[in-house]
């Protein structure tokens, strides 16, 4: 079942027959086996799969953080595959946003400075109205002058989300954004990620292994053993869980 899923004209990110192989000889590990997928603009897509399924690798390749062995990756009209370091840097700086599991804030900067960091690196001035909207959305107005060490985990992740949102990238990649948060803080973060898609048309691709988190997405793509094996539109936690259960058994056998 390696069919290309989500055939829409307006893809924010696209993978075509992407293979990713680590190592060589006996130590060779094939992480992705000819994955083709499109991620539509203005939608919140979750990539799910058991650990070792290649979901993080797929995201890293899509975001230009990792190179592919074969196949091509594009962000919008730009082919990511083949870009050199400065091209990749520019791509990440201007068109892609990131949210990590481990928040990854700079301890020396305040919350506000962290949020504005991608823009200052790019030498762009923030759109004040949008900035206010983002701050209001993530609810950090009274925490802006705090340093990361003075913020809770949930607050730190909200700062990280605001940092990704404020530059209005074409696509935001989120890697297990709720993995280090308790369920309440996690729900908050997922809530406004969904809002940013629904209300502001942001494109988000999120890797998760948590069915509850995946249920916030508009669409879930399932990976197993380096291949796309299933897809759900308008998922709920239950449907996601069911699909996962079905996947688990054969996946274990093939590994």
């Amino acid at each position, binding site marked *: 079942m390696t069919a290309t899923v989500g055939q829409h004209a307006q893809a924010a990110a696209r993978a075509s027959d992407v293979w990713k192989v680590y190592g060589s000889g006996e130590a060779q590990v094939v992480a992705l086996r000819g994955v083709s997928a499109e991620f539509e603009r203005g939608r919140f897509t979750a990539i799910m799969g058991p650990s070792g399924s290649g979901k993080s690798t797929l995201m890293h390749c899509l975001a230009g953080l990792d190179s592919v062995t074969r196949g091509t990756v594009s962000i919008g009209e730009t082919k990511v595959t083949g870009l050199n370091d400065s091209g990749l*840097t520019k791509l990440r*700086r201007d068109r892609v946003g990131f949210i990590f599991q481990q928040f*990854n804030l700079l301890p020396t900067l305040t919350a506000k400075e962290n949020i504005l960091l991608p823009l200052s690196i790019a030498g762009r001035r923030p759109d004040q109205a949008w900035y206010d909207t983002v701050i209001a959305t993530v609810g950090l107005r009274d925490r802006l002058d705090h340093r990361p060490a003075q913020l809770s985990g949930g607050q730190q992740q909200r700062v990280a989300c605001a940092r990704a949102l404020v530059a209005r990238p074409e696509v935001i990649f989120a890697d297990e954004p709720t993995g280090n948060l308790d369920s309440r803080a996690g729900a908050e973060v997922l809530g406004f990620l969904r809002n940013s898609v629904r209300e502001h048309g942001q494109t988000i691709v999120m890797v998760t292994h948590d069915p509850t988190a995946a249920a916030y997405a508009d669409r879930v793509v399932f990976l197993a053993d380096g291949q796309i094996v299933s897809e759900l539109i308008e998922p709920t936690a239950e449907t996601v869980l069911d699909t996962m259960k079905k996947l688990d058994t054969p996946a274990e056998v093939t590994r």
Partner: protein
Amino acid sequence: MFRATLKSLLARKVRLILSGLAVVLGVMFVSGAFVLTDTLGRSFDAIFADAYEGVDVNVAARPKIDVGETEGMPVVPEPVPAAVLEKIRAVPGVAEATGLVAVDGARLIGANGKVVASFGPPQLGENWTGESELVQLREGRAPQADDEIVVNRALATAGKVKVGDRVGVLTLQPKQEFTIVGVFGYSGGRDSIGGANEIMFTTPVAQRLMLGTPGTFSNISVTAAGGVSDAALRDSVAAAVGADFEVRTGTQLSEEAAAGMKEALSFFNRILLGFAAVALLVGTFLILNTFSIIVAQRTRELALMRAVGASRRQVIGSVVLEAVAVGLVASVLGLGAGIGIGALLAYLFSTFAGGLTLAGIGVPLSAVVGAFAVGLVITVVAALLPALRASRIPPIAAMQDVATPDRPLTRVTVAGAVVTAVGGALLALGLTGNAGGNTLATILGGVLFAFIGVALLTPLISRPVVGLLGAVFAWSVPGKLGRLNSGRNPRRTAITAAALMVGIALVTGVTVILDSAKSSIGGLAQDNLKAELVIAGAQSGPRPPSFDPAVLEKAAAIPGVRLVDGEYGDLAMVGGQRTWVAASSDIAALRQIFGAEPTAGDIDRLAPDEMLVSSDTATARGLSVGSKVPVQTSRGEARTYTVTGIYAASQLTNPVVLPAEAARGFTIPQPIQGFIQLAPGTRVADVQPRIEALLADSPEVSVADREAFIEQQTGQLDGLLTMIQILLALAIVIAVLGIVNTLALSVLERTRELGLLRAIGLRRAQTMRMITVEAVVISVFGALLGVVVGAGLGAAVVEALRDEGITDLVLPWTQMGIFLGLAAIVGVVAAALPAVRAARINVLGAIAHD
């Protein structure tokens, strides 16, 4: 635990190598110094043993003035009358007694018209007493006529002269011409003994030119008849010649000569050890920092060890063990490098000193012990504080995130203030001369304490200063990030900067002192020296250059010359005390040229039995006009002079001025400097060439205008300054290693952060700029501290030397600016490797980095 320690040690090779390098350099200095002095010492032993091999017993008279090795005057041997030689020949047990003349100060004018210079080894003028086991003619024949000489091979080579050449020789007399009739060498095919240049005359000529007294010898060499021991011979000869003479065996003589050389060497040794101490002080900062960072990075690991049951003592032990391993390796490497450096310096020394035959390179026990004591102790002491801190990590830290809270700086600041105060007090005590006999030790201790104190205070200062410095770069995002990074761990920044501070402070301090001295001397000369032309030469060995006194009279006859004063100088016993004395060819001219003012009596004229003293000497010795003072010069009998005038203390003349006649008894009975005042309206350029022409036969000196003379006088300080700067540059190099180390460790520590920055779009070049800004901020901060502390120390010393005549305080602003500029460059250089490393970080790997 032991295994775990070794494993973690091996895992961090690179950073330990960097900090170990500082110890290696320090140890290298220490062991190198010992190897060098040991090798040279044994070389001198061998030389002197050789030189006195054919001597069983030596008889000499006590010199009238006892002069030390480094006092800027050669010793004048007291002539031994020929009658003594006869007396010795009659002593039973004497096989042979030879009267010798061997006196320093025979200067050959080489083929290029210049005096063949010596930078230490003597230039002996001797009488030819025939070939011996030691001395062998290589070419030509022995000198027979009064104008014939033989020279040793080394001198012939250095002066590019050969048998048959007509050459000029300077002795007690001005230039005289001789024909070289032979060239000699020594047993074993050597061209020189210990680099000495030797000229041998016929005996009467040697007596006249080298001793100034016909029919005398500088010493008498005695060989024993068969069956008579050297000691027995010595005793019987001593009994025969009486107590006025020093009678010693050849062995004693060579031991004494070698001991004299070794004293000079030990001075050299102490200087090298001083620089080693500076290098090690800087190294201590570096090691302290490295271990602190390593302990901080290993917090989780150490906490885990505590959690699984390691005791505090074991944690301390593990860190100290690491230090011991680093110290051991560094000591071994340092010792090896030190042996190499010592050998190299010994080789350079032997070449420079003109063919000193080196004994084999020796590694004395002191070098080995010193290397390990210094290397191990310094490393362990530096690691002790971090080890204690490591032991205080609670086991729970293993479970928590590694957020080490900022520890308050109160304690370290209080400690810093106390240590700085102690340093200041010691300095004040030492500089005001209230430290009893330990002035130097007290001052050095004060400087050390001041450095450590300032280093402890640095974390407190670092926040605002680093912030301010960083503001310069904060216009760009990488600059701003770099600035924030440099302010992020004040202790780490502080220690790194403090390491640089030490070197820069010492260089600045020395520059302040020497520049102040230069300016004071120059200013004094500018204000007080009323001479348009000065005859002088640069001194390269123990003997100041001199010139023919006849030049003075001829110069006075040149139209346009108003006053001429020739200055003689020497050490003499004045009233039983060793004192620098001067004599002037024209006392009235001296007064006018130096602008001297009488405070009592008359200083315009001086009869042959009259003397002048400076006002402070008069006060110190209770002299007044009319006092009678016995004066013994290097040659001749003691005379009593009457003080007829007292002049205001001046820095340009010696404390006692004797009449011109007294100069005949000086070590160098020729003028050392000449001052010429021109009549108003006379052009310097008209007179200078005519005086230059007069000096044709006095190649040791030249005539210069006043500015050039001042330049020449103060130029010697420039050489000293350069030497000190080169040696201290090592301390700065170590500090640069420290910056590299700190940055490399910081980059490692912030791998994830760097990954994030790259992920959100920081370009490689921007990443490198960020690291570079951090390095530049730290190094400029260190240089700034160094410049301030150094200027302070220098100013304190200058203030203390006010009474010695250093009245101007000159702050070398340009130099200090250059240091800051250099520091910025140093920062860029130090950042290079860590920056490249940071830029190459794999973004994906870095983000996942734990």
